[in-house]
């Protein structure tokens, strides 16, 4: 039912591995867009998903990162096989620069891997549906909300549909409000005729190869508010020091202080997840584990929060 969309950088892949069992138990299916040339981390991640009895969608024609010219190595990785062949499926991104023929070629070359369509800017839905005719009802269609609006999605009404919406409003770290709305799709997806929903976690859809030096450090943590019809909100705890690119550890300490202070009010509505426990431990030790690790905790907290709500 929940389809978190990950760009497969190091800490995204680690997050998926560490969450593999929880996601499998809750019927969550990560969508993974590989962005790094080396596929060892991806392979390890897929193995972890398989042994947890989970599922994943692996994008074979990434839009971002090292495989954007050619996804052949990803296709090969899928072909080389997994014991759980059925549960790791190929995701085909349908982008604005593709025509129906491109889509069909990619579809047939991955036919063994139960391809899923991920609509991300493609502009000929009618032709595609006509060409695939009866097969379409057996194909899962994932829509990236910004690129696939209601009228577009209507073409696929007979198939299994998933809506992915970027709830994360990316800004400069120094500019985040303390709290803002994240998404209500976890409540409303079935009303929209969808069998599932997704998001870009607490990272967002916008892709960057690497962060520059951080003038501010921000912790992004989501919560579901039962007093607001279960709407999901996000807190941004931002360091006070924002005018130099130095001392990320000290800035993390400042942001973490704000999180712990909010938790101690007992009115934060943040779920006491394993990630929150780890933030408490880091606060007690005064330890900064690195920005990638902090991003991992933020993603884990988000997944755990949705698992508790949907489970």
């Amino acid at each position: 039912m929940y389809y978190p969309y990950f760009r497969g950088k190091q800490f995204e892949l680690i997050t998926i591995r560490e969450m593999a069992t929880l996601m499998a138990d809750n019927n969550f299916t990560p969508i993974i867009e590989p962005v790094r040339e080396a596929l060892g981390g991806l392979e390890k991640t897929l193995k972890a998903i398989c042994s947890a009895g989970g599922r994943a969608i692996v994008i074979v024609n990434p839009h971002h990162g090292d495989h954007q010219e050619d996804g052949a190595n990803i296709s090969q990785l899928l072909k080389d096989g997994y014991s759980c062949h059925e549960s790791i499926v190929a995701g085909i991104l349908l982008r604005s620069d593709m025509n129906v023929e491109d889509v069909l070629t990619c579809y047939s070359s991955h036919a063994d891997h139960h391809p899923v369509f991920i609509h991300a800017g493609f502009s000929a839905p009618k032709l595609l549906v006509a060409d695939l005719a009866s097969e379409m009802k057996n194909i899962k269609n994932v829509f990236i909300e910004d690129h696939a609006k209601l009228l577009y999605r209507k073409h696929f009404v007979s198939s299994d549909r998933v809506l992915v919406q970027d709830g994360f409003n990316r800004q400069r770290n120094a500019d985040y409000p303390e709290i803002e709305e994240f998404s209500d799709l976890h409540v409303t997806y079935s009303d929209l005729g969808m069998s599932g929903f997704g998001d870009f976690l607490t990272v967002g859809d916008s892709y960057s190869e690497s962060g520059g030096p951080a003038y501010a450090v921000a912790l992004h943590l989501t919560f579901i508010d039962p007093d607001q019809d279960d709407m999901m909100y996000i807190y941004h705890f931002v360091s006070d020091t924002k005018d130099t690119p130095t001392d990320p550890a000290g800035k993390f300490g400042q942001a973490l202080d704000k999180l712990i202070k909010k938790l101690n009010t007992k009115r934060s509505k943040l779920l006491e997840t394993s990630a929150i426990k780890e933030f408490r431990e880091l606060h007690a030790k005064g330890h900064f584990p690195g920005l990638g690790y902090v991003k991992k905790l933020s993603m884990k907290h988000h997944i755990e929060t949705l698992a508790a709500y949907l489970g």
Partner: protein
Amino acid sequence: MQASIGDVFDAAFDTLKVAGKRDEYVYRTAISHKILMGTHSLRTASMLNEFRAGSCKADLVVLNGTATVYEIKSERDSLVRLANQVENYKRVFAKVNVIASESHVNGVLSTVPSDVGVMCLSKRYQISTVREALDSPERVCPASVFESLRAAEATSIIKALGRTVPDVPNTRRHAVLRELFIDLDPVSVHAEMVRVLKRTRNLAPLSELVEQLPQSLQAAALSIPVRRTDHDRLVEAVRSPLDAAMAWS
């Protein structure tokens, strides 16, 4: 003989070098060739590019026995920020120079204090000294120096000056180092800073690459990081004949 990619860069540089059109890169090249590699060498001196100093970034810093900053004011630049830049540099480096086009020299002289050196890149691409910079390490501000350095560099300066760094959690580390650092003697801090930076930002490993590149690309090679494994590919690329390069995609 057939022109190479390198020849094209040299030809472009010659166009850029004409007084009146020169940009920052021409000045950077002049300092790299005539001071860093002329007066000094890559084995004995080092250079920092875009080095943070207070709220500014220093164009070029040459480290030999002392640290000398060169602020470039080409004919394309304005002098609006100069007074503030110079103030910031004086808190970090013992010698501050402004190198300017002939058209800017008078403006620079009336903007900067008398301990700041003024140089001129002439129409004939010669550097002349209008006024010598004073070497005054005693005016540097340890707190400003600290903010310019990496944590490991600051730590080795503190240790070299005989202080012990207590073992604290890493979220507290920067604050603790800073407290120790701001108490140090400015002259000693400056001398140690020069020594540490010459080690941590050493350019000697680049000398082989620089020697193999055309003149026009040498200053770029000293400031733009190129992976070691790509050095040979870069050299090979600039040596390729132009018509072969036209077919590159």
